[in-house]
């Protein structure tokens, strides 16, 4: 019962966004600290590049682009699920404590774990993932009531509470730390792409490969959950079961993304919002758009940020906010 014109619009939009993603990836492959000119891209991709060219492309730039793309998609999907389940347009992975949980875990680990730098880089995403999942579990535990089950409002309130408390804890933690360590942590919190390496890609890819089709399969149920509860029950939706499954999906996705990107949350708010503004509230249509949009946005933000300031660049999280916030305000302004 969707207007055929809307379906067509969604298809075109998806195509355009995917094309944009491809363009950003190609541009991103040729931009960076060490030079790899665009006319050398194709030969290098086909295996005819020099050792240096191949190293820059396959070991430095491509992994980073891919991981950024995947993380953007995961964050957007997580946000889309959360906004549907909580019936709150301002919901994003941050509200269930994902970012601050990962942040505290990283800070604790970084400040107190006696470990050498080599193993450290690989452990970081694992620590962040564990922190995020642990926090989400706490939020579930405290918001679950035996009588009423999992109420979205409670999840959001307790999630925000946890977020605040953990952010506070983090300030206490880092205020007594040394200068360089604080620098590192604050950079992580600002959302820096961390796990730009093939093993991390293989670690987060399965989540997406499974959870994207799974969520699309659940799109119908998300539609019903975003109406109010009596209506959803009335048409025979097992509300509590579906809500729990979908919230777990959102947590898994967000935790995966945060583990490699640090504290980027804005994508999870922005992408689903934009998708809904573009193709309406039906999740069959807006979830795919949100996913592709999230990937493209984070890629764009990171590619720009990476090249604005040498050699470290501006963290992607900050770039996302810089690009996204004005557009977001424009949307809100247009609405009212």
């Amino acid at each position, binding site marked *: 019962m969707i207007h055929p014109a809307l379906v067509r619009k969604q298809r075109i939009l998806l195509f355009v966004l995917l094309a944009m993603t491809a363009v950003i990836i190609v541009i991103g492959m040729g931009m960076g600290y060490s030079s790899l000119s665009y006319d050398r891209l194709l030969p290098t991709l086909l295996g005819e590049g020099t050792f240096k060219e191949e190293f820059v492309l396959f070991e430095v730039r491509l992994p980073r682009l891919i991981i950024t793309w995947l993380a953007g998609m995961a964050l957007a999907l997580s946000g889309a699920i959360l906004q549907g389940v909580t019936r709150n347009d301002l919901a994003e992975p941050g509200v269930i404590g994902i970012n601050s949980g990962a942040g505290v875990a990283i800070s604790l680990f970084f400040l107190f774990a006696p470990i050498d730098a080599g193993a450290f880089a690989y452990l970081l995403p694992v620590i962040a993932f564990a922190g995020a999942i642990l926090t989400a579990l706490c939020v579930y535990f405290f918001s679950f009531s035996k009588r009423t089950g999992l109420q979205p409002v409670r999840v959001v309130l307790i999630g925000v509470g946890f977020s605040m408390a953990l952010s506070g804890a983090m300030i206490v933690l880092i205020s007594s730390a040394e200068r360089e360590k604080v620098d590192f942590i604050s950079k992580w919190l600002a959302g820096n792409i961390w796990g730009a390496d093939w093993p991390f890609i293989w670690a987060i890819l399965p989540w997406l490969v499974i959870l994207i089709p799974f969520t699309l399969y659940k799109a119908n149920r998300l539609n019903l959950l975003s109406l109010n509860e009596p*209506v959803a029950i009335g048409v025979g939706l097992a509300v509590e079961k579906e809500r729990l499954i979908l919230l777990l999906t959102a947590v898994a996705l967000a935790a995966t993304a945060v583990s490699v990107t640090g504290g980027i949350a804005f994508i999870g708010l922005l992408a689903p919002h934009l998708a809904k503004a573009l193709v309406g509230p039906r999740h069959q249509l807006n979830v795919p758009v949100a996913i592709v949009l999230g990937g493209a946005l984070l890629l764009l933000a990171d590619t720009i940020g990476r090249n604005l300031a040498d050699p470290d660049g501006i963290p992607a999280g900050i770039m996302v906010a810089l690009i996204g916030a004005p557009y977001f305000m424009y949307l809100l302004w247009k609405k009212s």
Partner: protein
Amino acid sequence: MARLYTEDLSIGYGERLIVKTLSVQIPDKKITTIIGSNGCGKSTLLKAMTRIISHQGGTVILDGESISKENTKVLARKMAILPQTPESASGLTVGELVSYGRFPYQSGLGRLTKKDYEAIDWALEVTGTKEFKYRPVDALSGGQRQRVWIAMALAQETEIIFLDEPTTYLDLAHQLEVLELLQKLNVEQDRKIVMVLHDLNQAARFADYMIALKDGQVVKAGRCEDVMKPDVLKKVFQIDAEIGRDPRTNKPMCITYNLAKGE
């Protein structure tokens, strides 16, 4: 025995019981209205009968099965609910919302079949909302919106339809329009309608069977003539009512009333 009835049903929020050991039958193929003063438990009863809230004790039986044991999707093919203040997602079109009523018949990805489309079109047709099919629900007026929600419940193709104060927020003409639509569905298609109504005279005018509640217990259940009596209304609403006949429909109606004195 009716297909739908409650047995010693107790419902409460927390410690406080709102409905206490209530047993009532909902007659088949009829329009039943539930009346009572504010907080008497009429909405609560409706919600418990439709599994929107769980009950503390007793059972609700539909076709010989307790509804709390029945699969929720199977139940949704038997009963549809129009809650008191349904909310639509912003921007959702009428056709899309009504199509959600087909959920109990869908499996897997939830693609709409030809049969689904027929049910949706029919529901839009009888409720007179076909012209709004591609318009967003939130752009409609209160009366139009209420008809759209009824269309969604109709698309569910259930024998029983529950409605919780379907005429709230509507003006007089629209109230009657909604109630007449329900009556038509009952007469032409044998649908069983159960609704909570605030307006006593409307309840009597459209009902075949009335249930009067006070403090979570049945004061009187039966034909309108048996319920619309001064002594019943005095107990239920604390009013001293003058009962006459509606000159047009010949149904009992409360012509005027005073607050009951004494006691």
